């Protein structure tokens, strides 16, 4: 059976060999931030924190698109799904995330036509099959996912499908890392850069991390051997006192990324300021539909106007997303905030740092405060 490129990278013997190598060379304290939520989950899933030397700590960053989506966009989707004749489509990830007063799961229970899709093209198919209804796709995600939203809009345009539109809540990663570094709250020694975002954007947008902030950064894959090898590469740079942007995940990340996909993305969208839940507005990290494609903008099409965001009382997701605190330091965590009754988005998303801490063992790891 063929599980090429997966099984080999889960080999326990190779993994243990790399762990020995890390132990051999690692001397200095190293705070490494995994920017990406998929890394957070993989690190917990394979128990990687436990096998690292005590001087290496892994800090979860802001890379969970569900978690950083502000109430505003969820409220927009909720308001649109209540309109008559609307089919709202979205990824399974967004169903349970609470907005200001409701979630899509609650709206579905109340009778709204909400369908989970695996691909943006499924949403276009639904629009084509239901010409008498309006099909709206609620899109979240980073550079990995956003080109698929652009491709869906282009497909709808090409086929003349007029009953398809998008609530866009997509975000861009590199400038968010800059914002984190500028506030300099935690003293990060190295970045575990997101493998699949980088498959699209390549390494150039990260150069500033090494050049302006003198911090090592490595683009890393998601299997245990990838993650351990990437950590080894980071530790090596830290011990040598160098700062470069390297690629561990060579098989999936050419240095130039996927320029064709990025061209499609920026044909339909243009950069804009974006609100990151708990962090605030970060210039240039959002995506807005270009005027030529504005007929695909659901918020405009349905004339939705949401009042300003309301923060969740006592929720410290913002600090968790910035890596300033671990979930264990939040008073809600594990008490009033649990996966079946989440206070904040970091507990809702499978990839949320709080959900990962809760699900995989409440921080039985090396980084308790």
């Amino acid at each position, binding site marked *: 059976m063929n*599980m090429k490129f997966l099984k080999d990278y889960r080999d326990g013997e190779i993994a243990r060999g790399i762990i020995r190598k890390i132990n051999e060379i690692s001397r200095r304290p190293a705070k490494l931030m995994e920017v990406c939520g998929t890394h957070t989950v993989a690190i917990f899933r394979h*128990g990687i924190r436990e096998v690292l030397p005590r001087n290496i700590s892994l800090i979860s960053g802001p890379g969970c698109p569900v978690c950083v989506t502000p109430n505003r966009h969820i409220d927009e989707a909720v308001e649109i799904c209540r309109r008559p004749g609307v089919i709202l489509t979205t990824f399974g990830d967004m169903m349970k995330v609470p907005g200001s007063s409701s979630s899509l799961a*609650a709206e579905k*229970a109340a009778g709204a036509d909400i369908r989970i899709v*695996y691909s943006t093209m499924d949403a276009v198919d639904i629009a084509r099959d239901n010409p008498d209804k309006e099909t709206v796709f609620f899109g979240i995600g980073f550079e990995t996912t956003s080109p698929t939203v652009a491709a869906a809009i282009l497909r709808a345009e090409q086929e003349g499908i007029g009953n398809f539109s998008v609530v866009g809540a997509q975000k861009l990663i590199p400038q968010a890392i800059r914002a984190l570094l500028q506030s300099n709250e935690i003293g990060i020694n190295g970045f575990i850069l997101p493998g699949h975002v980088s498959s699209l954007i390549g390494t150039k947008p990260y150069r500033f991390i090494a050049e302006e902030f003198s911090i090592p950064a490595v683009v890393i894959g998601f299997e245990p051997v990838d993650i351990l090898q990437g950590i080894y590469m980071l530790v090596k740079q830290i011990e040598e006192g160098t700062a470069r942007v390297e690629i561990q995940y060579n098989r999936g990340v050419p240095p130039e990324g996927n320029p064709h996909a990025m061209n499609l993305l920026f044909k339909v969208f243009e950069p804009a300021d974006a609100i990151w839940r708990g962090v605030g507005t970060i210039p240039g990290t959002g995506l807005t539909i270009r005027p030529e494609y504005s007929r695909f903008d659901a918020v405009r099409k349905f004339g939705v106007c949401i009042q300003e965001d309301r923060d969740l009382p006592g929720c410290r997701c913002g600090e968790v997303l910035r890596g300033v605190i671990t979930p264990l330091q939040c008073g809600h965590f594990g008490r009033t905030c649990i*996966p079946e009754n989440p206070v904040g988005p970091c507990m809702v998303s499978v990839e949320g740092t709080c959900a990962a801490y809760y699900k995989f063992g409440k921080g039985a790891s090396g980084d308790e405060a």
Partner: protein
Amino acid sequence: MRHDKILLAHGSGGKLSHELVTELFLPVFDSPELNRLDDRAEVQVAGARLAFTTDSFVVSPPFFPGGDIGKLAVCGTVNDLAMGGAEPLWLSTGFIIEEGFPVDKLRAITASMKKTADEAGVKIVCGDTKVVEKGSLDQIFINTSGIGMVPEGVDISGNRARPGDKVIINGFIGDHGIAVMAERQGLSFRNQITTDSAPLNGLVRSMLEVSKDIHVLRDPTRGGVATTLNEIAMQSNVGIVLREDSVPVRDEVMAACEILGFDPLYVANEGKVLAIVPPESADSVVTEMRKNRYGEDSVIIGEVVDDHHGKVVLSTGIGGKRIVDMLVGEQLPRIC
């Protein structure tokens, strides 16, 4: 109850289901038989130990690779009885059918029920039919209840796991959930993954012949192996350690899980049994299980420990550890 409306997750077998049962149903129905929260009640009638259970089946679509809702309806109830060591004897069946449902399909479903009942050696002895207006439900729902007899000297319950006991499973996990989900998600297989749905009373009987002192039997259906082991850990107030490398998962199931963002430990099974047995009899039980057609791939996947009470810990392939929690909500295909 924290919610004022019933959500899908209340029926998914995970934490919200648990909350619904313990906070809404138990306080009202309150009876010692029910309060044990096993998959069946045990009642004494004229000196005989009877096992009694009920289950409803709402799977969509009603026909899927390797099975259909009828086969599930018989296996599910037979297995709930067998998980107490009971010999299943009689079943009832209730059909709720949507107006317009093809008679041919109903005929196929009942034929499948009869075939499965014959295999399990149970009789379907009473039934009921209701037809509802189109749109009131999705094609067909089936309820079955069952009665069985518990043999002398058998004492199987979710609260009997003891430190040192071994955890056994009778084969590959996740086949049923992936067979059903694949249809909905547009996945297909080079070698078709079919439901593992099977009546397990014969397998359980042969296990009891080797050792009467089996502590726990439970079928990891909704919520999967992870959720079932959590329930056992809580009921018995012990810890359970699973070894990731020994949990059998087919490549196709693993690949489908990777694509959909699922964890096979949470995917539903319909023909699997988790057995918790004392260490001295574990090997002979496994050897016996492997002789049965539904136990050929039986294997020890972990053990019960006197540590982290109420929790399940997985030791990972690279030598790390993580807690395996109950399923929260239902598993949805996800991209991140």
